[in-house]
C-alpha cells in the first residue's frame, strides 16, 4: 500500500490562530484511494481544524496539500467540493425549512437562474443515488421535521450529488443511536465498495476499530502515529490518543441504596410545540444511587429535566424532593432545598460565556450570604471560592478573571460540575455531563459522579451516551416517546435488549 501515491496528502500543516494558540504543529497525513482512514484524537487535538483547512474553511499558516500528486489550495468549501472533496460537519449545514431535495440541489439546480427548477429530473438522479446506496430519505418533508440520522444522510447525499470522491465525516456518530450508527456504517461500506475514499473523524475507539482500514492518531496538534486497524487494539489506540494508560472502566464499589430522596409520580409535561413530551413517568432516586436515563435524544428527556428543575410547567403529576412536594417550585427555591443541576447545554444554560470564571462560579447561589457584604457582592470571597473550585477540580483556566469562553469545553464542563457540587446538594441532575468533553475530563467527571454516589447523594443521570449510562448507573431507564420502556439494572441486560427498548419495544417488567 505504501508505494502507491496517496490520493490526498496534507504535508507539514501548521495552524497558529491570531491569539497565538498553536492548533496544529506540523501535521502530515496521507490518504489512499478507496480506504477509510480514521482520524482519532481527543476533543481539541486538532482533528477538526485540520479538516477545515482541507475543506477550504480555514487558511493554514504553513504547509501544503496535494491532491493526486498535484499541489492544491482551496479558497472555500465550494472550491473543495468542485475538486471532489466533500465534508459532513458535526453540526449540519442544512436549511431547516427546505426539504431534502431543495437542500441537496441548492447551488446546482440546473440551467438558468430564472427558469423553473427541474424538480423531476433532480428527483430521478437522487433516487438513483439512493438506490445504489441502499437507503431512502423522504425528499419532500422539511428537514427540520426529520430525525438527526436522516438529516445526516441528506448531508451525505448532498455531497455525493456533487460527485465528490473523498468524503470527510466529522464525528458522525455523536448524535446517532446504536441502530443509526449501524446503518451509517453500512452506507460507508457501500461507498467504499464504490471506490470512494473516506476520512472518518472520531474519538470513539470501538467505532474506529470497526469501520476504518488505517488510523492516524493526533494529539495536541501533532501526529502520534498511523497504524493499520487490523494490527491495532483499543488499548494501544487509547494510549496513543491520551498519551498515557487510561482507565476505561470506572471503579464502582457495590453499595446498598438508602432512603428515597427524589420521587416523580405520573408526570406529564408538554414540549415546545404543545405535544405531550413526557407521558406519565413514575420513578424514584435513592440516596447513594445513580439512576440513569438512556434513550435517543428528543424522546422527552430535555422536557423531563426542565420540569424537574423548575424550568418548565408540569401539566399533571407530582415531584417530591426529600418528601416535600416541589411541583411548580422555582429554581431558586429548589437550589435552596438541596437540588443541583448540571444542564445539558453548557454554553446556553450552564454558563454565561462572556462573563469571567469567577462570576460564573457563583451563578445560582450568588444570593447566598457567604458571597455578600451588605448589599454588595464580596468579590474577595467570590474569588476565593473560584480558586478553590479550580484547584479542587483541576480546571485549567488562565485565571479567575478570564472569560469562561476562553476555556476548553472540557474545562467549562468541569467548572459547571464544580459549581453545582459546591452548592452542597443532596440530589444532583446530571444531563449529558460529558458531551463534547475530552477523554481525560470525561473520566474525571464520571468518577466524580460515582464519588457523589458513594457519599450517599442521589444522582439522576440523563445521557445520550449509552456507554456512560451503562457504566455509571445502578439502575437505568430507557426512555422512548415520553415513556420508560423499562427500568433495568445495567449488568442484567444485553446491549441488544437496550437497543430494542431505545427503538420503542417495551422490555420485560422487572421485579
Amino acid at each position, binding site marked *: 500500500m505504501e508505494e502507491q501515491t496517496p490520493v490526498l496528502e496534507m504535508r507539514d500543516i501548521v495552524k497558529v490562530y491570531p491569539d497565538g494558540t498553536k492548533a496544529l504543529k506540523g501535521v502530515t497525513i496521507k490518504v489512499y484511494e478507496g480506504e477509510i482512514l480514521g482520524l482519532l484524537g481527543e476533543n481539541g487535538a486538532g482533528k477538526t481544524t485540520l479538516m477545515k483547512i482541507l475543506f477550504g*474553511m*480555514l487558511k493554514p499558516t504553513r504547509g501544503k496539500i496535494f491532491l493526486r500528486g498535484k499541489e492544491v489550495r482551496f479558497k*472555500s*468549501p*465550494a*472550491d473543495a*467540493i*468542485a475538486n471532489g472533496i466533500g465534508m459532513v460537519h458535526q453540526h449540519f*449545514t*442544512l*436549511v*431547516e*425549512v*427546505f426539504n431534502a431535495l*431543495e*437542500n441537496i*440541489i*441548492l*447551488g*446546482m*439546480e*440546473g440551467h*438558468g*437562474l*430564472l*427558469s*423553473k*427548477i427541474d424538480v423531476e429530473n433532480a428527483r430521478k438522479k437522487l433516487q438513483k443515488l439512493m438506490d445504489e446506496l441502499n437507503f431512502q430519505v423522504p425528499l419532500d418533508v422539511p428537514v427540520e421535521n426529520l430525525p438527526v440520522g436522516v438529516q445526516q444522510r441528506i448531508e451525505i447525499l*448532498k455531497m455525493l450529488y456533487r460527485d465528490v470522491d473523498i468524503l470527510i465525516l466529522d464525528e458522525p456518530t455523536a448524535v446517532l443511536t446504536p441502530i443509526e450508527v449501524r446503518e451509517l456504517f453500512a452506507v460507508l461500506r457501500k461507498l467504499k465498495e464504490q471506490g470512494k475514499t473516506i476520512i472518518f473523524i472520531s474519538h470513539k475507539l470501538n467505532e474506529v476499530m470497526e469501520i476504518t482500514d488505517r488510523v492516524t492518531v493526533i494529539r495536541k496538534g501533532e501526529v502520534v502515529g498511523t497504524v493499520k486497524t487490523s494490527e491495532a487494539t483499543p488499548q494501544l489506540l487509547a494510549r496513543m490518543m491520551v498519551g498515557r494508560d487510561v482507565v476505561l472502566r470506572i471503579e464502582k464499589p457495590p453499595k446498598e441504596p438508602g432512603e428515597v430522596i427524589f420521587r416523580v409520580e405520573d408526570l406529564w409535561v408538554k414540549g415546545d410545540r404543545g405535544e405531550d413530551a413526557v407521558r406519565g413517568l413514575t420513578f424514584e432516586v435513592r440516596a447513594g444511587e445513580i439512576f440513569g436515563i438512556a434513550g435517543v435524544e428528543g424522546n422527552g428527556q430535555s422536557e423531563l429535566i426542565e420540569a424537574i428543575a423548575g424550568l418548565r410547567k408540569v401539566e399533571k403529576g407530582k415531584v417530591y424532593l426529600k418528601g416535600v412536594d416541589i411541583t411548580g417550585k422555582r429554581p431558586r427555591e429548589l437550589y435552596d432545598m438541596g437540588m443541583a443541576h448540571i444542564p445539558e447545554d453548557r454554553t446556553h444554560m450552564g454558563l454565561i460565556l462572556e462573563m469571567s470564571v469567577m462570576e460564573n462560579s457563583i451563578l445560582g447561589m450568588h444570593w447566598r450570604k457567604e458571597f455578600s457584604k451588605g448589599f454588595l457582592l464580596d468579590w474577595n470571597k467570590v474569588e476565593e471560592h473560584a480558586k478553590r473550585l479550580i484547584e479542587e477540580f483541576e480546571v485549567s483556566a488562565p485565571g479567575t478573571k478570564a472569560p469562561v469562553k476562553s476555556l476548553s469545553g472540557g474545562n467549562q464542563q468541569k467548572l459547571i460540575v464544580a459549581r453545582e457540587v459546591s452548592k452542597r446538594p443532596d440530589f444532583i441532575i446530571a444531563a449529558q455531563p460529558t458531551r463534547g468533553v475530552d477523554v481525560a475530563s470525561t473520566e474525571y467527571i464520571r468518577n466524580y459522579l460515582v464519588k457523589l454516589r458513594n457519599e450517599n447523594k442521589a444522582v439522576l443521570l440523563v445521557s445520550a451516551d449509552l456507554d456512560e449510562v451503562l457504566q455509571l448507573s445502578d439502575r437505568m431507564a430507557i426512555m422512548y416517546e415520553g415513556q420508560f420502556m423499562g427500568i433495568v439494572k445495567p449488568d442484567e441486560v444485553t446491549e441488544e435488549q437496550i437497543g430494542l427498548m431505545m427503538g420503542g419495544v417495551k422490555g420485560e417488567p422487572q421485579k
Partner: protein
Amino acid sequence: MNEAMVISLLLGSLAAMVPIALTSVGAVISERAGVVNIGYEGILMFSAFFGAIFAELAGNGWVGILGGAFVGLLFGALHGVLTVYLKGDHVIPGIGLNLLGAGAVAFGIRAYWGTAGQHTVPSDAQISPLWMDAFGNSLSPMVPITIAVAIVAWWVLFKTPFGLRIRAVGENPEAADALGINVELYRFTAVLIASALAGVAGAYLSVDWLGTVTKQIAAGRGFIALANMVFSGWNPLIALGGAFLFGFFDNLAIYIQNNPWLAGTIPWQFIATLPYVVTLIVVAGIIGRARPPKWDGRPYKRE
C-alpha cells in the same frame, strides 16, 4: 349602494393597493434574503419627490416612475453596502432614512417649486389611465403591472434557482456559502430589487394616483407595507391580497365619511382606523403566526 358606487369603490381600492403591494413585495424579497430595511417610508418620500421632478422635466409620467425606481435603487445600494458588505446594523440606516425623507422633501418642495407643503403635478407629467368613466373613476396601468409584479415575485421566489438561493441565504447563509453561493451578492441584489420597487411605489403616488407632491405624501404607507409583509408570512401573493384589503377598507372609510347618513352616527376617527384594524385582523387570521426567515436581520460573516 348602486352599481356606480361599487365600481368606484373597487377602482379606488385597486389604486390604493398599488403602493402598499409594491413595497410589501419588495420587502418580502429583501427579508427572504435576510436583510431588514425599515426605511421604505423614507424611500417613498424621496421617490415621490424626485419622481415628480423627473416626470415634469421629461413631460412624461413613465420617466417619473423610472426615476423613482432609480432613486430607490440608490438608497437601496447605500443600505445594502452598510448591512450586507460592512455587516452593520439593519435597523439604524432605515431610521435615518425615514427622518431624512420627512425633512428633506418638505424642504425640497419649497426649494424646487417655491410652494409650501404641496405641489400639483401638471397633467402632461402624469400617467394617463387605461380606462376612465364620466364620473372620474379610472384604472391606472400600474394596477395590472403591480399584480404581475407580485405573481412574478412569487414564482421567482418559490420556483426558480434564484429564489431558492435568495431564501437559502436568508435562512442559513452558512449552508449556502458552503455550496458556493455568493451570500453577499444575493443579499445585495435582493435589497436592490426591494428598494427599486419601493421607489416605483413612491413615484406612483405623485405622478399617477395622487397627482401631487406633499410633505406627508407617504402617510405611513412604508410602515403599513412592513406590517403587511409580516402578516403575509413573507409571501408575495398574500401580501398583494393584504394590500388590496387595506385599499378596500381605506376607500370604504372615505365612503362612509362622505355619507352624511352614516357619518353622523359613527365618529369619523373610529372609521379612519378601519382599514388598519381590519387588514391586520384578516391577514393575521389567515396566516396565523408565521415564522420569519431564520437569519433575517443578521449580518453573515464567514468564520
